[in-house]
């Protein structure tokens, strides 16, 4: 072997931009854009300082947190939790057929396209927009919040399930089909065992997310602790708002811990 006749220097080719020249041009453009957008931001130092003094005032009025209206607080928290649990349950149940329909390797082409279309449209709108819509339809209160979270959970869980199904090993599916099994049996024997642990993990994650989201949708009037929080802010009851925020932090932390614990068990 004659190593001297070969180049001793080698760098990996640029993966995304194709050539080194294009890569350099792209980086230069990105830097120019950052410089330009910073120059147009128009940062007003005086306004920022005024905000700081107001923040100090706000936090001073939040302290000490006022837990005296415990019943109202508890009612809101429990409502939020119930919304989160019910929405997750509905989401899990309804996402199974939608997820199967949206899996390219299981569903016939037209069914797949329809289900994917539904998921794309459903994911277009943020929870808050859906919540406003449901509040208009069903009035203020937890029903609108529950429907919002359930709707989003179905779409999210179905998308995750469809992607998990598309990633299963095809060999077992082929083998089960070869025994003369029908479609339902193929799903129950070759698909579900392969996606079950991931799907349970996703559902637990969604429960955790729904606990967080349930506090947000209340702000537009869809029930739960968020509605209580929004009301306390608009009445300048900052000490009560602080109590609510602390409870939300505790609840979300608890949800996160539970979700981690369950998913740890699943591995």
């Amino acid at each position, binding site marked *: 072997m004659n190593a001297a006749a070969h180049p001793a220097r080698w760098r990996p080719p640029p993966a995304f931009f194709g050539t080194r020249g294009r890569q350099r041009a792209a980086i230069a453009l990105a830097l120019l854009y950052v410089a330009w957008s910073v120059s147009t931001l128009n940062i007003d130092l005086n306004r920022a300082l005024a905000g700081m003094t107001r923040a100090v005032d706000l936090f001073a009025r939040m302290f000490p947190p006022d837990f005296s209206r415990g019943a109202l607080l508890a009612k809101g928290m429990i409502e939020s939790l119930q919304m989160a649990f019910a929405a997750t349950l509905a989401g899990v149940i309804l996402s199974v057929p939608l997820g199967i329909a949206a899996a390219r390797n299981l569903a016939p082409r037209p069914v797949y396209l329809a289900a994917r279309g539904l998921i794309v449209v459903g994911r277009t709108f943020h929870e808050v927009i859906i919540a406003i819509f449901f509040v208009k339809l069903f009035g203020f209160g937890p029903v609108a919040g529950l429907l919002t979270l359930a709707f989003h959970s179905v779409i999210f869980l179905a998308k995750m399930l469809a992607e998990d199904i598309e990633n299963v*090993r095809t*060999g*077992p599916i*082929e*083998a*089960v*089909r*070869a*025994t*003369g*099994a*029908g479609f*339902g*049996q193929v799903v*129950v*024997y*070759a698909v579900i*065992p*392969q996606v*079950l*642990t991931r799907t349970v993990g996703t559902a637990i994650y969604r429960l955790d997310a729904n606990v967080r989201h349930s506090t947000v949708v209340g702000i537009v009037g869809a029930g739960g602790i968020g509605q209580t929080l929004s009301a306390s802010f608009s009445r300048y009851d900052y000490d009560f708002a602080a109590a609510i925020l602390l409870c939300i932090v505790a609840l979300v932390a608890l949800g996160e811990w539970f979700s981690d614990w369950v998913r740890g068990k699943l591995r």
Partner: protein
Amino acid sequence: MDARQEDAPGRTGDRPLLEVENLAKVYPGGTRALDGASFVVTRPEVIAIIGTSGAGKSTLIRCINRLVEPTGGRVLLRGTDLVRLGKADLRQARRRIGMIFQEFNLVDRLTVMENVLSGRLGSVGFLASWMRRYPARDVANAFAMLERVGLAGLHDSRADALSGGQRQRVGIGRALMQEPELLLVDEPTASLDPKTARQIMRLIRTLAEERATPALVNIHDVALAQGFADRVIGLKAGKVAFDGPASGLTPAVLTEIYGAEDWSRTIRPEAEEEAAA
């Protein structure tokens, strides 16, 4: 329910076990994987299908149970043309054909027992199979089958806890639980070490003989094909280039199937093969 008794009327007459006529498959991309392959199986025997990668071996056996839809030709299983069957009839026909795979294709997270019992899926209703409520006869047969393939006591192990050879034994058990009239075997030993490969080939051969079930075995290893098959079909570019007894594999035949190469070290006398196994 016994598939064999149910299908008894179709089995009368003297139709061969399997007739493959001018079978063709053109994949959507335009690849012509099978180009008019024909052969007949008249008695229970182990038939090795050999040929280069891309000669159409895998497509051929998948076209027989229509895991791959053929684009032309006929497949007659005791006189019934499988290519023309509708969905429900195809399921019935698949029950009669057992299949064994290169990658074993077990469902990893299920137990050995569930994998073996899944061979009965074509004969058990959806709810019963979902709830794992198999007929007592199937359960007893499955235990007997596990013992027969050398896995007694492993029924509750998860499939992914087994070694390669053990997994293939589960795959064989699943296929035989169908009480098939025909076995399709796709590269059963390509994922196994040489010793395990010989044990698995011997097991397939013994079980096929015991049950008088013909087996079509895709196989890369010419020495294994020669050692364990009664008959060899050589595929070349989607056509049958050789069809004859395993002893008829001469350097000239191998050159015809695979192209020029020094074949003298590949073809070994029968006695030596047995000793190696």
